[in-house]
């Protein structure tokens, strides 16, 4: 079974599907959606089967296949997964059908065709699978950059009012990062060539020794690209724009999967390939991560635009993930990987719900909503679940991962851990505030039948605390007379949301299967970097490793 | 070797002296009874129109002749050394020159057919 080309198929099937969908004539929207959904479900099935075929205790990379691609550059089309990548593939498998379902009834902007939208989504899926499954650095880079193109078109063609700006910003940020990484990729190849046969294969590169000074340069090259991708503060400014302007489906994939490539890259490439440099830079990275957690949380509280708010929560969460990765303990790193999955589910759901709400209200402003829970209880319920998962309430999946990160990082980095914990409190604040303002209280703004007070997507109107009071007074008078009926979730929407809700709860209660998958891979990674694979006495080990490197 | 050019310089000096003397002396030897009409350009009695200098335009044909001249003069530049050294160059030299002249002929044929050699 393990010889079965799961990974290749997971790339090929959606790619072919994308071509087929794109080739459909203009009017056949329904067929396009059906094909897309079918294809994405096939991928999910493949992902599940691959997981079954994966032996958690076996080799680091499994399901491998390798074909020589560009001999001159020593590039192979080499695929393979470890536990970390595998869970990411599962996440992709789950999210894409959900996204397709969620976008089922989306209306295109202008005269554009929705078939193109689904084609882009499928192409994006293929490329995302490729990114996680590549075991050749060059191949990884190719997928990494190519992934931009479908996302760019998703944002630019199907997004909100400022989509052009957001799309270009997104593309340029990522491209700059990618190009810097390209320099490092080439450098890596040259280093390997100087030590024998030049190669891009991860395994080969992992085995060679690199001069510490060179390591620093190469590390920075990779790090900047991943930091932009993952968005770590201060490279994050593109995400709120892209997240807010992207169509809901695009936003889910963007924040849920695409950005994980950054944190995945830290784990897969930065740490094992440049262990010395990673240790040297770890304090700075951690500082950035923790600063990001706080800064993003504070910014999130200031947002009046729901999608921007959700985007900022993601920035905060990525800070957490980076924290888990760069303390170099297996526990924390396992937590971080788990967090990547859980964040994808939780934030994905949050985006979906916000999207459903926006679809009803036509505005992204928090102040335009109020009292929705009374009319649409199911919507409010799902919103609550998503919100709670996002603030990592015990019992939801995020709690497990956040807990693991904190527990794993406290022994070696107590200060950073404590500061990051403050972020949790802030997270509770902003998520709950948003929930409370939109779902409860008097029916206001749009829900109250008023036209929008300000143009859509305008500047945030001051701190959230103030707006609450002001708009409340304004709407009280008008609300009863013209209150509009807010429809509750349709069956399609419930079908879309329910798998995520289920997964959030299941993984919150029983995360062990995932942890079992992740842990060996993480342990291998952490041992590469000279951290503590076992989790015991991390402090001493890292210190020892650092002294070693210092000598 | 350059000494064989010295006589030319001598002749040049003599000729130039003669010519300059003639030109410079002319106004002083002859009578001077100018009037306005005399100093005007010769125009068969019509009021002269100042047009030849500064901004005057010549028929483009003259440029064409100049260009053709340059091209063929250049050909001559190559023909002379070849002719002098022809005995040493052998058959190869002949073949090369045939190719060269044939190439010039191609251009020549083009100019001819395109009316470049017509003066209308």
């Amino acid at each position, binding site marked *: 079974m393990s010889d079965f080309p799961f990974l290749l198929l997971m790339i090929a099937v959606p790619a072919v599907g994308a071509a087929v969908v794109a080739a459909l004539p203009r009017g056949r929207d329904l067929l396009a959606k059906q094909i897309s959904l079918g294809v994405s479900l096939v991928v999910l099935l493949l992902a599940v089967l691959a997981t079954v075929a994966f032996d958690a205790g076996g080799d680091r990379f499994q399901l491998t296949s390798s074909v020589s691609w560009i001999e001159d550059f020593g590039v192979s089309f080499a695929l393979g997964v470890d536990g970390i990548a595998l869970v990411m593939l599962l996440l992709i498998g789950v999210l894409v059908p959900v996204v397709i379902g969620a976008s089922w009834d989306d209306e295109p902007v202008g005269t554009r065709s929705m078939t193109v939208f689904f084609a882009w989504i499928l192409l994006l899926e293929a490329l995302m699978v490729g990114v996680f499954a590549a075991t050749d650095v060059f191949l990884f880079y190719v997928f990494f950059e190519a992934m931009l193109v479908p996302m760019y078109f998703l944002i630019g063609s199907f997004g909100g009012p400022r989509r052009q700006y957001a799309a270009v910003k997104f593309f340029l940020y990522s491209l700059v990062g990618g190009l810097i990484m390209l320099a490092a990729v080439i450098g890596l190849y040259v280093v390997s060539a100087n030590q024998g046969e030049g190669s891009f294969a991860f395994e080969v590169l992992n085995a060679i020794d690199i001069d510490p000074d060179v390591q620093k340069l190469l590390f920075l090259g990779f790090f900047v690209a991943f930091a932009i991708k993952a968005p770590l503060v201060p490279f994050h400014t593109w995400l709120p724009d892209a997240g807010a302007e992207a169509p809901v489906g695009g936003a889910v994939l963007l924040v849920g999967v695409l950005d994980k490539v950054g944190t995945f890259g830290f784990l897969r490439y930065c740490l094992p390939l440049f262990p010395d440099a990673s240790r040297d830079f770890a304090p700075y990275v951690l500082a950035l991560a923790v600063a990001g957690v706080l800064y993003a949380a504070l910014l999130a509280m200031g947002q009046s635009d729901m999608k921007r708010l959700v985007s900022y929560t993601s920035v905060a969460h990525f800070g957490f993930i980076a924290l888990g990765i760069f303390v170099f303990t297996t526990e924390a790193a396992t937590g971080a990987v788990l967090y990547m999955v859980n964040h994808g589910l939780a934030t994905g759901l949050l985006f979906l719900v916000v999207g459903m709400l926006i679809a009803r209200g036509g505005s992204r402003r928090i102040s335009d909503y109020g009292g929705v829970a009374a009319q649409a209880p199911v919507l409010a319920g799902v919103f609550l679940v998503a919100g709670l998962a996002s603030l990592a309430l015990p019992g939801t999946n995020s709690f497990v991962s956040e807990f693991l990160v904190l527990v794993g990082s406290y022994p070696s980095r107590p200060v950073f851990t404590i500061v990051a914990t403050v972020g949790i409190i802030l997270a509770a604040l902003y998520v709950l505030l948003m929930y409370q303002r939109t779902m409860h209280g008097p029916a206001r703004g749009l829900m109250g039948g008023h036209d929008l007070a300000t143009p859509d997507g305008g500047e945030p109107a001051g701190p959230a605390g103030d707006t609450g009071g002001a708009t409340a007074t304004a709407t009280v008078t008008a609300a009863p007379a013209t209150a509009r009926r807010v429809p509750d979730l349709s069956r399609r929407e419930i079908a879309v949301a329910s798998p995520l809700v289920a997964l959030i709860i299941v993984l919150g209660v029983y995360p062990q299967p995932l942890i079992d998958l992740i842990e060996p891979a993480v342990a291998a990674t952490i041992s590469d970097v000279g951290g503590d694979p076992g989790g015991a006495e991390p402090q001493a080990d890292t210190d020892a490793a650092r002294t070693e490197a210092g000598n | 070797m350059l000494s064989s050019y010295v006589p030319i310089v001598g002749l040049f000096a003599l000729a130039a002296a003669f010519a300059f003397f003639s030109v410079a002396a002319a106004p002083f030897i002859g009578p001077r009874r100018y009037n306005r009409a005399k100093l005007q350009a010769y125009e068969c009695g019509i009021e002269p129109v100042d047009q030849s200098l500064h901004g005057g335009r010549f028929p*483009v044909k003259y*440029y064409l002749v100049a*260009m053709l001249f340059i*091209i063929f003069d*250049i050909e001559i*530049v*190559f023909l002379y*050394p070849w002719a002098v050294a022809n005995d040493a160059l052998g058959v190869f030299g002949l073949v090369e020159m045939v190719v060269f002249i044939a190439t010039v002929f191609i251009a020549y044929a083009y100019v001819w057919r395109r009316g470049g050699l017509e003066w209308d």
Partner: protein
Amino acid sequence: MTLAHYLVLAAMLFTIGAVGVLVRRNAIVVFMCVELMLNSVNLTLVTFARATGTVDGQIMAFFVMVVAAAEVVVGLAIIMSIYRTRRSASVDDANLLKY
């Protein structure tokens, strides 16, 4: 006079030509300056031919003359064509392509 004198003279001519190209505004004059540069190169070539005792440099001067002539032909044609339309050979008047 040593050979260096010829070289210096050629270099000066070349510089005069180059400066002329840069500061003069009439296309024909600019073009003449280019020709001056080419001819200063001829002088250099012939001087070097003398210095090295070979005839290569002189032969090269022939080629340069040919090229210069071809350039004259093409250049005059181009300049004439625009002159006939604009009635000016000033480079400054040709400014449609400035942005």
